[in-house]
């Protein structure tokens, strides 16, 4: 086994026991990047020299017996919306040509303090305004989309080209590519992870979180990200705690909500089968399944659009007027059309969000977590714009990918996407676990119990 194949948990144990040096690990991941990048295009930029220097510093500390924690010497990628001092934050856009971040974002600073080593900036759908990440190829089938907008982060982690990576999630942009590439993605509670220094798409809906190979790895990364930062007005006053889930798979007493509406509508047979099998596994582990009704589903898409469209247009107001030609056509069109949405529509969406949050609060009186598909279908072939469901309904790929993820953005509840197998063509399928606000520990516990009951997952078969 090569060092790049290790999960964060395994690598951390090996580094702590001095069986593996951060230099060996970072070199191994940089070699892996060189080998797979020509096929995948997950990275905007690879910071090899800086990474090797950071790895040597981490190695010197380890030799002195000084360890910063489980991320000490672990190679990571940052979605290229996240500022890291001295590097460009391109947002995968020509609009940002010549950009250079002067200081670290809060999350980059937290990870650096925890000893993580930045190996590169990963591709996003331009300014995170899309669900495809067209520059990047799916880690399991290069002819298919990576998903987005954190497509580069998901593909890098799936291929062993990063130990873990960060993404952002406004309507599913961490969880969608995580599901489509067979890795774990965690969208934390709104406000748990500060967004200072992270390019916004929609302030009401944006979240930052980790993409990892295992649930246990996500639990190791989260404490380095969480914590109060007054520079993000949504930031909660929290006390980062050890989120590591217990070993063992006993879920006795856990109430798992299974939606009878919305989440299994217009879902492919392979996705439904895999997710229901995973839910049955949770029951086998001791959980009690409870059928639930998801409230206000008719208004989910309208509320998502009513918030995101005008907020994105507001963020880009200046550059849409000065350098409109530098945007890609799909993003430019949405930004321009957003200028035409009245304030009344935006306010209705904000009020609908309040109602939805209140309605969802009641759900978690009945259950501890909700289990559902992350996305209704696997990764589609690149260039495919629509999905036709068996009843004749035609849905855009973007709408389909956002549909099951958006409720967690609107309500702010945490959502964890966990791989639960593959379809008949070998493409990954994800299940999301949703919990009450600040219910991350329970999600990680249930997700980790599930993954321990399954054989260890292999890296995507690239190169």
């Amino acid at each position: 086994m090569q060092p790049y194949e290790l999960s964060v948990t395994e690598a951390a144990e090996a580094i702590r026991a001095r069986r593996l040096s951060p230099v060996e690990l970072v070199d191994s991941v940089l070699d892996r990047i060189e080998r797979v990048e020509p096929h995948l295009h997950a990275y905007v930029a690879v910071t090899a020299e800086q990474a090797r220097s950071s790895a040597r510093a981490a190695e010197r500390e380890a030799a002195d017996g000084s360890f910063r924690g489980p991320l000490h010497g672990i190679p990571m990628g940052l979605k290229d919306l996240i500022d890291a001092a001295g590097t460009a934050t391109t947002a995968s856009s020509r609009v940002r040509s010549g950009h250079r971040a002067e200081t670290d974002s809060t999350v980059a600073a937290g990870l650096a303090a925890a000893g993580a080593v930045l190996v590169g900036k990963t591709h996003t759908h331009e300014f995170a305004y899309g669900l495809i990440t067209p520059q990047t190829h799916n880690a399991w089938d290069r002819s298919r989309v990576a998903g987005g907008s954190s497509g580069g982060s998901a593909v890098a982690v799936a291929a062993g080209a990063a130990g873990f990576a960060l993404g952002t999630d406004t309507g599913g942009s961490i969880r969608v590519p995580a599901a489509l590439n067979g890795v774990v993605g965690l969208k934390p509670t709104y406000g748990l992870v500060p967004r200072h220094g992270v390019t916004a798409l929609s302030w009401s809906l944006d979240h930052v979180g980790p993409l990892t190979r295992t649930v246990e790895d996500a639990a190791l990364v989260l404490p380095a990200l969480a914590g109060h930062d007054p520079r993000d007005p949504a930031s909660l006053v929290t006390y980062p705690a050890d989120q590591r889930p217990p070993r063992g798979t006993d879920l006795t007493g856990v109430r798992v909500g299974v939606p009878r509406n919305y989440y299994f509508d217009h879902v492919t047979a392979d996705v439904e089968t895999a997710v229901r099998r995973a839910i049955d596994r949770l029951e086998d582990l001791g959980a009690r399944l409870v059928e639930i009704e998801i409230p206000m589903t008719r208004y989910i898409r309208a509320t998502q659009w009513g918030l995101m469209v005008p907020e994105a247009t507001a963020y880009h107001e200046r550059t849409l007027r000065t350098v409109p030609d530098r945007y890609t056509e799909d993003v430019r069109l949405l930004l321009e059309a957003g200028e035409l949405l009245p304030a009344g529509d935006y306010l209705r969406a904000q009020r609908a969000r309040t109602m939805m949050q209140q309605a969802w609060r009641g759900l978690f009186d009945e259950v501890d977590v909700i289990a559902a598909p992350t996305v209704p279908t696997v990764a589609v072939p690149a260039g495919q714009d629509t999905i036709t469901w068996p009843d004749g309904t035609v849905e855009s790929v973007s709408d389909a990918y956002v549909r099951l993820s958006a409720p967690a953005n609107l309500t702010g509840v945490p959502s964890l996407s966990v791989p639960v197998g593959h379809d008949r063509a070998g493409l990954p399928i994800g299940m999301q676990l949703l919990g009450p606000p600040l219910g991350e520990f329970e999600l990680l516990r249930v997700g980790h119990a599930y993954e321990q009951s399954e054989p260890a997952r292999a890296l995507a078969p690239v190169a």
Partner: protein
Amino acid sequence: MSHPLTDLAPPEAARWAAHAGLPLPADRHAAVAATAQHIHAVVSVLRELDFADTPPAASYRAGEGKSDAAV
């Protein structure tokens, strides 16, 4: 409550955009009108809701009372 939608003609979209301070080149009027119409169709469903006294959700807070929580 019904919410009839009217078609948004390209010149009208151009006028609205200009009113918002975004002059659009002529070759973009039709595409922007179509996209704006689509967004309007999606979002206007919210007009069915009776919001009563429901306030908008907001990310601003003065002081930090209720945000205090341990995880």
